[in-house]
């Protein structure tokens, strides 16, 4: 029983790490980046390649799973995304879907269409018994990493100068520029970090969610659900939404497996019909 709750939390955590970059680009920078999953995939593949071809240890690949997508994100932001900040949402959708198409086909070309598998280290396998609850070690690890990440992100956004600059830049880029805030730089860094976190999520989640070239399509819906249900006004909203969805999904499948995927979709529709701005949006 509690094991199900625990699994749901771990699943929700992974969803959050995967989606939180999207909630930043969408919520703060108002950019509908459907290619977000492609950055997550890049992180997953980075880990898979480093481990399987170069024999790195899982933990050692995690920083790379952050940096490689972050770099790719930075590059794309500087060259392409930047031009579309003011564009209509439909343009952004079209553009980012195009990127997804390219990423999927390119991954297939270079890596093959079969799923990539990674071996998590021995010490993260198996389960332990904590107060009578069976707890998976790897899932505990995920919860720990993601928990730290959530707190760190929240602190950065609310407590640091960078956070306030970002919020100012988002509110009104012109005024922010006038105040001497390097808006372009702030956006680029934010975008890169968002992409990097997605990559980290892709690497961490590969074990649970699987990893193949169609990853960005398969999980696009989940990301969007997390962000819309959570609302885009803060990080806490999507975080709670991801947990809620994770628990609802896992619990739903455990208790009423006949319903299958209904649970997660129905939760989303009900929430959005009654709270169009998301469950945890202010006002």
């Amino acid at each position, binding site marked *: 029983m509690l094991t199900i709750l625990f699994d749901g939390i771990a699943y929700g955590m992974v969803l959050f790490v995967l989606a939180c970059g999207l909630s930043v680009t969408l919520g703060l920078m108002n950019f509908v980046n459907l290619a977000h999953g492609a950055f997550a995939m890049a992180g997953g593949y980075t880990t898979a390649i480093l481990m399987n071809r170069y024999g790195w240890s899982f933990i050692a690949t995690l920083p790379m799973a952050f940096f490689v997508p972050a770099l790719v994100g930075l590059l794309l932001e500087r060259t392409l995304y930047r031009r579309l900040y003011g564009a209509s949402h439909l343009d952004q959708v079209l553009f980012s879907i195009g990127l997804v198409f390219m990423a999927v*086909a390119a991954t297939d070309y270079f890596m093959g269409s079969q799923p990539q598998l990674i071996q998590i280290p021995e010490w993260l396998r198996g389960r332990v018994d904590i107060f009578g609850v069976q707890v998976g070690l790897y899932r505990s690890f995920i919860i720990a990493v993601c928990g730290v990440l959530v707190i760190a992100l929240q602190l950065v956004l609310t407590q640091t100068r960078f956070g306030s600059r970002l919020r100012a830049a988002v509110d009104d880029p012109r005024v922010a520029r006038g105040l001497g805030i390097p808006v372009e730089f702030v956006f680029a860094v934010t975008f890169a970090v968002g992409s990097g976190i997605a990559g980290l999520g892709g690497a961490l989640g590969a074990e649970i969610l699987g990893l193949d070239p169609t990853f960005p399509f398969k999980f696009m819906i989940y990301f969007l659900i997390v962000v819309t249900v959570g609302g885009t006004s803060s990080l806490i909203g999507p975080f709670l939404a991801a947990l809620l969805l994770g628990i609802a999904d896992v619990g739903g499948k455990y208790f009423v497996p006949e319903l299958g995927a209904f649970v997660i979709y129905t939760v989303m529709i009900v929430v959005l019909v009654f709270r169009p701005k998301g469950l945890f949006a202010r006002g």
Partner: protein
Amino acid sequence: MAKFADSVADRAAASLLKRGRWRPAEILFWLVAFGAVYALPGHHLILNEIAIIGLFAVSLDLILGFAGIASLGHAAFFGVGAYAAGLLAIHVTADPVLGLVFATLLMAVVGYVSSFLVLRGADLTRLMVTLGVALVFGEIANKNGWLTGGADGLQGIFMAPVFGVFEFDLFGRTAFAYSLVVTFLLFVVARRIVASPFGLSLLAIRDNPLRARAIGIPVNARLSAIYAIAAAYAGAAGALLAQSAQFVSIDVLAFHRSADVLLMLVIGGTGYLYGGIVGAIVFKVLQEVISDWTPQYWTFWVGALLVVLVLVGRDRVGARVSQLWARLGRGTR
């Protein structure tokens, strides 16, 4: 003064009526389309698919381009329409026209009922709610295999000849002609709808729902109405697919259907009805050509084209088209 008012009224009439008038380019377009029934015998199958998806995209344009409702779940109506037509053919009558009418009317009702879910909320919310509805429909179809055939698809559809005369042939000629006629007729109606006072009130709602309400337009009722109409159109497109393929698979309700049709519409341009059809032609032909060349990696090039299209400026391409459109329209005056 009266004289002056009269002349203004005349000008106003001329200007408004122009919206409903057929331009030479449009007439030419449909002549070419119908000409293809005779002129392009080797391509009827793909043309049939284009006609059906074109109609589907027109249906999406009615809500997105004319009423401002973005949808990522429009396949819900397409798919249920397909199932409705397929099931009717299996269990009741194999007459295609009856099946088409049945699916269309049924989807109008379903569209009306589900419209209440999308009345509130901004674009993103609507995208997700419509998406959710389509996914739930997909799950329902999957779980009720006794009715829908589940993941194996609905089999055993045999269609009678259209009007008892035109049999569905292997070359797809009847199918194409049938789909084209249906698409054309529904297009004519759609054209009339968007040029009508009702259509104008939709544009007003799209531009500024707050003001639309403040001048007495019953915003929700209008949105529900156009949503029902668009759903009916999508249902008709789905019925055409079910009838010409004589098979309905579960992925008529899949996410990629909704996403593809949105892509096509946006590529072709929203808000002038032809965008959907143009987008369907462009997308399908590109897919066909590129995937013949590289069946495995064609998505890369389609993706690249999308990216380039946006970067070059869809607006600029669109502006060029609408300029051309305007110039052609001026020719009629």
